[in-house]
Structure formats: C-alpha cells, structure tokens
C-alpha cells in the first residue's frame, strides 16, 4: 500500500495542474463571484458545464449556477469516479479558511499500475498516483478532485467522499449517521456520472406532491424544506 504524506497545517492551496483531457477544452474566465481567482472550467461547444475557482486563497468546486454562469450541462465530462474508501487519502484543514476545506496529496509512482480509459473506468484505490506537488481541494460539497497522471495522460479523478471528523463532524463512525447531516449521491449506474435532465424539471422530480414541502432559496442547485416524513412513490 502506498504511503501518503500528510501536509502541514501551513500549506496553502496552489494552482492545480491544468489537465489536457479528451474532448474537453479548458477555459479561463474571470471569476464573477470575486473568489480571488479565476474560473478553470470545462468548455465544449461554447457551453461551460462545470467550473472551479482556483487561486491562492480559495480553491473550490462550484457549479456554473453558483458562479452565475448559464449552462445547459449537455456535455459529458470524462471524469472518473472513485467509489471506495482510500486509506491513502490524507486530509488536513487549510489554515485560515473558515469553511471546511482540505487538501489531499500523495506520492507519485505508487499503485498506479494500470492504464485507465473511458468514462466508466474504475479506479478503486489508486490515489497514490497523484503527481508530486499535485494537490486537490474540496469544500463542503464533499467532492474530491485529484489530478492524476497515468503515464503520459492526465485525467481528473473526482471522489465523492467526506473529510475527517475534525472537518465535518459525524455522530457515529460506524454507521456514518450524523445528527445534523446525511448525504447521498445519485448517479448513473453504468457510467457513474451525473444523470442530467432539464433544469425546469427539478421541482417536479425532487419535490413530493405535498403541500408542506416547499422550494426554498439557499445553497445548491435546488433546495426544499421537507415537512413530510414519507415520500409518496
């Protein structure tokens, strides 16, 4: 098993490696939300599907909507999903950040023994293949981004996970249940990607037909207050 070097608390988020992915164009545009950085996004056919803010003081993942960028999310991105625990992950809170963040770093040349190809490729515990100096940051959304190097090919790994107790406390380590937050990921079964549908359908899909359940403003692409205990099937 590959070792992981935990970084010190004084470490800062540096600008991540710009990836060269197939059928994906990276673009840099000024950050419209003044995140002390610029938006590094995936653009294809003139549509910005996803974006993240990079800079010295903040590195986070934001949806185009959160950034005020219109997007139809029609382009599939060749991102890989890691769905298992990785003991090689090392997390450390970033000093000076009020919001929960962490950076992940691992040594190179450890465990990355087979090439990955295609959007449904599965990389269980290959976190050790992050390039030296390659860093990843994730915020409260719980999506980890790792810039990995498989031979001559760069790919971006995104891992849906949570950080450790000191960053996002959990009530029970055994069950993973928290008295405040419980999180899930709904994805496509085959490709482990975002199952897309038109934004106008969000309320119809997400909200139950109950009078006490209402759409509310707040973080996220869609948010509702759930008064009913049972969801009608």
């Amino acid at each position, binding site marked *: 098993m590959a070792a992981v070097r935990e970084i010190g608390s004084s470490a800062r988020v540096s600008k991540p490696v710009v990836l060269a992915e197939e059928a994906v164009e990276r673009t840099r545009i000024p950050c419209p939300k003044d995140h002390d950085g610029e938006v590094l996004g995936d653009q294809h056919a003139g549509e910005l599907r996803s974006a993240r803010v990079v800079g010295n003081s903040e590195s986070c993942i934001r949806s185009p909507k959160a950034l005020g960028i219109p997007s139809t999310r029609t382009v599939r991105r060749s991102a890989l999903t890691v769905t298992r625990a990785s003991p090689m992950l090392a997390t450390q809170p970033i000093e000076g950040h009020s919001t929960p963040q962490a950076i992940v770093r691992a040594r190179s040349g450890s465990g990355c023994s087979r090439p990955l190809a295609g959007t449904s490729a599965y990389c269980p515990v290959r976190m050790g293949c992050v390039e030296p100096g390659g860093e990843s940051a994730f915020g409260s959304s719980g999506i980890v981004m790792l810039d990995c190097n498989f031979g001559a090919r760069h790919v971006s790994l995104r891992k849906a996970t949570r950080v450790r*107790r000191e960053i996002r*406390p959990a009530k029970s380590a055994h069950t993973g249940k*928290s008295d405040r937050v419980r999180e899930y990921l709904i994805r496509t*079964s085959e490709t482990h990607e*975002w199952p897309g549908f038109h934004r106008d359908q969000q309320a119809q899909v997400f909200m139950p037909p109950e009078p006490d359940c209402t759409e509310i403003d707040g973080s996220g692409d869609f948010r509702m207050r759930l008064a009913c205990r049972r969801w*009608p099937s």
Partner: protein
Amino acid sequence: MSEVAFVGEDVGWHVVFEGSIEDVDADALIATLTARVGMASGESCESIQIISAKVQVGAPTRSVA
C-alpha cells in the same frame, strides 16, 4: 423540519439532508428520488450514501429507470 439540498456535480446529484433528519426516512426518500431521477434522465441510476468519518461510501442501491 429538515431541508434537502441538491447539488449537481459531474459524479452525480449530491443530496444533503439537513436538520431533523431523524424524523425523515431518508433512505426511502432517496430510493424514490433515485427512481424519479432515473425516469427524468432516461438512464438507470443508483444511489450511495456518503459516509463521513470512515471516508468511504456505502454500498450502491440500484434503481432501473
């Protein structure tokens, strides 16, 4: 009273239950949500629970659209 937030990410819909989740059958809601998302997207979908402290995710539960 609880709130549910949906965040679209490349890896899927990140669904977060906040508040008094003990009063909500979250697993049942997610199962129904998964089926609904599958129907809306036209693709077979599955849901996984994101577990905090152990840095791992739960076993997938599949739902065929």
